[in-house]
């Protein structure tokens, strides 16, 4: 049940809006910036482009702060920031009946995307939420969701093996992939363990379906055919491992969870864990091995598979920088995943030297030389389609939206409808397969003809693009009142000052929103439209605002804003 008084109390505990990190100049123990290095950020457009890749988008202030610094130092600062966490705030918002404000976890995440200071970490949370996907109704699971968000946030720069273990023991993952209270088989009735997590932890979260080379290209057999990584027998064998897990705190396997049980890691109930031998992927776990030990041995086996580095690296690249990365780029990142260490051009060293180190992997993704040499300018292997949530949040950050207003925005309760909203909502993918598939190639397109993968195009179509423009129109023109409460009010003061000179206004938006990737045709069309938009005597202020709003919606609907480039 939602209670207004609880919400007010709850959200005053919310984070306050602030910037997206300061420039490399201000790094503690910072390495002084050296303009001769590739990762030195010399211009505002370089800063804008880098922040579009590494955060939810830069504000004018974020961009200015980064100029004259080194991208590696920006990363170093981000890696050392304390994480935004969710569970404690959701628990504090619980009412006397033990219920939570139903929007709580989602609103806190929207707030973080728009206003948190640990932008890279929260962007990584979004990326990880699309690899280790929860697809479950949030109602009555608010604490369970928040606990999972904390797992991703705390481990965002940690090690993938550790993350996979915490995910495996997460109640919401167990509910989503149905291994909560999964029982060992019963030979008398023919009952078999649930295969769901066994299959998907391999297919989607660790090794994938097909054997990969270190650059994520397919290994082929002697007939030139791909090689499947596992068989049905492997799934049947692995399914025995994920039996016997249920809530901590209960006296029995089937006991209903107590008020504090849904957010704590699951525990093993030995009587319901399969005592049989578990055989999969060439590993055999002896009969009578405990559940905890079986899970550890399983995750070690999966993690040791040579597919993990290229598979996970490519998925992360797609979420940050490139929808269709070329093998060489994937190979560079995967090698870093393997070594657990990345050294930036300025000598800054990232990572612990442990295989699967995510900070090192992220540094390799974001500091790849291709993004700093100018080589990536028109190269489709270094361009990412900007997914709808990123398109919306970048607008909010660019124009100073106060993150504390999120709860007043009724539409942010659910942005999943493609016809009228974004067709995407964080943590609400329609299935464990996420919003889109990493291998999706869009039929009937130029990128499809060029065999470029474009996962984000799987949710882009004629009606969703209209829906996006309409959704953004309401925000850009500040048409989103919600019952008289204060809602998102964009701060266009910098743009209003340029409204009388359309060229300057377009320059401003092109830098802020597209890192100066706007085409000549787009620029001139916006300028022409603005010139045709009168500023009338006696209503100058209103008309200047109209001009700015028209310019912003055009920029947001421009092809340049559809991608991160």
């Amino acid at each position: 049940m939602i209670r207004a008084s609880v919400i007010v109390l709850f959200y005053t505990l919310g984070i306050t809006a602030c910037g997206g990190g300061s420039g490399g100049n201000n790094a503690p123990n910072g390495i002084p910036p050296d303009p001769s290095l590739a990762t030195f950020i010399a211009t505002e457009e370089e800063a804008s482009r880098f922040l579009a890749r590494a955060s939810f988008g830069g504000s004018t202030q974020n961009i200015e702060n980064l100029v004259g610094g080194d991208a590696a130092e920006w990363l170093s600062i981000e890696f050392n920031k304390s994480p935004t966490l969710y569970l404690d705030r959701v628990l504090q918002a619980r009412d006397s009946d033990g219920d939570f404000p139903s929007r709580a976890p989602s609103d806190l995440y929207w707030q973080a995307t728009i206003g948190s200071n640990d932008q890279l970490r929260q962007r990584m949370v979004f990326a990880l939420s699309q690899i280790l996907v929860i697809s479950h109704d949030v109602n009555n699971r608010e604490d369970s969701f928040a606990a999972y968000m904390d797992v991703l946030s705390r481990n965002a720069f940690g090690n993938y093996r550790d993350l996979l273990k915490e995910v495996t023991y997460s109640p919401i993952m167990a509910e989503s992939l149905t291994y909560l209270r999964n029982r060992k088989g019963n030979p008398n009735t023919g009952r078999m363990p649930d295969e769901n997590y066994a299959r998907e932890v391999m297919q989607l979260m660790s090794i994938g379906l097909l054997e990969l080379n270190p650059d994520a290209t397919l290994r082929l057999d002697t007939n030139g055919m791909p090689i499947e990584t596992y068989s049905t027998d492997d799934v049947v064998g692995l399914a025995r491992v994920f039996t016997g897990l249920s809530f901590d705190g209960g006296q029995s396997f089937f006991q209903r969870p107590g008020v504090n049980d849904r957010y704590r890691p699951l525990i093993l109930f030995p009587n319901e864990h399969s005592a049989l031998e578990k055989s999969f992927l060439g590993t055999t776990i002896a009969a009578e091995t405990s559940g905890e030990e079986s899970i550890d041995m399983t995750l070690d086996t999966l993690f040791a598979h040579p597919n993990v580095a290229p598979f996970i690296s490519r998925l992360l690249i797609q979420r940050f920088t490139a929808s269709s990365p070329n093998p060489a780029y994937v190979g560079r990142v995967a090698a870093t995943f393997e070594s657990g260490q990345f050294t930036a051009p300025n000598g800054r060293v990232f990572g612990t030297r442990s295989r699967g180190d995510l900070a090192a992997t992220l540094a390799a993704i974001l500091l790849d030389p291709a993004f700093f040499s100018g080589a990536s300018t028109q190269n489709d292997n270094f361009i990412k389609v900007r997914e709808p949530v990123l398109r919306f949040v970048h607008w909010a950050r660019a124009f100073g939206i106060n993150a504390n207003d999120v709860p007043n925005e009724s539409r942010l309760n659910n942005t999943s409808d493609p016809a009228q909203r974004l067709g995407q909502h964080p943590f609400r993918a329609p299935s464990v397969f996420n919003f889109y598939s990493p291998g999706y190639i869009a039929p009937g397109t130029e990128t499809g003809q060029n065999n470029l993968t474009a996962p984000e195009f799987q949710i882009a179509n004629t009606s969703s693009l209209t829906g996006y423009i309409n959704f953004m129109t309401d925000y850009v023109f500040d048409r989103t009142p919600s019952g008289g409460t204060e809602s998102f009010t964009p701060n266009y003061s910098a743009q209003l000052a340029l409204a009388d000179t359309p060229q300057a206004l377009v320059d401003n938006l092109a830098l802020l929103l597209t890192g100066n990737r706007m085409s000549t045709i787009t620029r001139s069309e916006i300028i022409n439209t603005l010139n045709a938009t009168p500023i009338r005597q006696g209503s100058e202020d209103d008309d200047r605002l109209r001009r700015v709003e028209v310019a912003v919606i055009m920029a947001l609907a421009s092809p340049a804003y559809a991608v991160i480039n």
Partner: protein
Amino acid sequence: MGLLSGMTASQSFAADTTGYKALVCLFLFGGMDHGDTILPFDLTSYNQLNTTRDGLFNAYGVGSGISSRDRANLLQLLPIGDTTPLGGRDFALPRELEPLNTLFNDGDLAIVGSVGPLIQPTTRAEFEARSVPLPARLFSHNDQQSTWQTLGTEGAVFGWGGRFIDAASAANVNLNSRFAAITSGSNSVFLSGQNVQPYSVPAGGPRRINVVNNRSVISSNNAFDNTRSMLFDFLRRNDTGAGSAFARDVAALQSEGIISGNDFADAFARANVDTAFPNTSLGRQLDSVANTISIRNTAQLTGTNRQIFFVGIGGFDSHSNQANSLPSRHSEIAGAVSAFRNSMVELGAWNDVTLFTASDFGRTLNDNGDGTDHGWAGHHFVAGGSVQGQQIFGNLASSDPDSAEYTASRGRLIPTVSVEQYAATLGGWFGLDDTELDGALPNLSNFSNRDLGFMA
């Protein structure tokens, strides 16, 4: 026209595109449990299923007398035609599918059993020995969704729905294919062809661009008419000079969406279906399909003689809690399909429209306690005025997981009808000839029976 353009005999395009015909693909995402959809009804088979699915039947409360899976509460199917292949066995639907039971017994609905992807006819021995070519990545959701739609694993870019429209367009240059392939929202590769791309009509109908069409957004003052007009030109401009192929693709899609969207919305304003649909996801989607069919003769859709629609709902991946999740899904299907039938009768189009189900796969015959896992073949429904209704085609398998109808592991049903035979039977009714069917369905020629007989 094939002769005039100098085609050889094997390339001649002869699809019959006279009159109006439409196919509606209802995709059940997640893999619907065929074994809990069409249940055995004769006492022996029913009892055997009760034993095999002890956990699931317990979860349903079988034996209570009020359970929907108690035999007394099942709705018996009364098939006509040749029932010899059923070997004297009887079948039934759960009560949540009551409207489909009525459609079946009224002759508006047929059942096709054991449909799934195959490269060629395959026995259990051949499957276990891998001695025949098999579809790749069986039991994987995304790949089998793709295989059902395209006959290839994920990454394939042409669906057999799109290829059917391609064939119809090639045979008739006057065919209007702009709104021939229509999806209710999700990007269905099923409808992508060489020359046709799906047009998305969301539940509730098409939307216009508010910033242009709603004058109050910018200003209702005429002084801003030029702004609106230039803004509209900007939004629908395809040639934007964008530097990357990804950005050009978005621009093209946006342009197409806005231009077609306006035309479609003009036509849709004249949609006139009175039949009430259930307020469910599928109900709203099929409501949009019915209203779209109702405008097939408007000026904007002139010449749209052949249409294929794609609708879908999820929630069928019932590894757990199946006794609670599947019945509500069944109710949603039955209510929406029944309303759709009524709407087509209202429009006088029921004989011209065929709705068929598709799904990732069926599920294991052995349960896992309170759910079922990924299988292979499943049973499907075909509804329409031209369907040979009240008949059962294909194989409705036994309840014995050790039977050779299943793989050796966990009772995964082996198809006896390939997706391509199922598709070819629909495609033949849609108007395609044998050459065109072979072009759209690459493995069809491996099967001797190209027409399963469920279409009139």
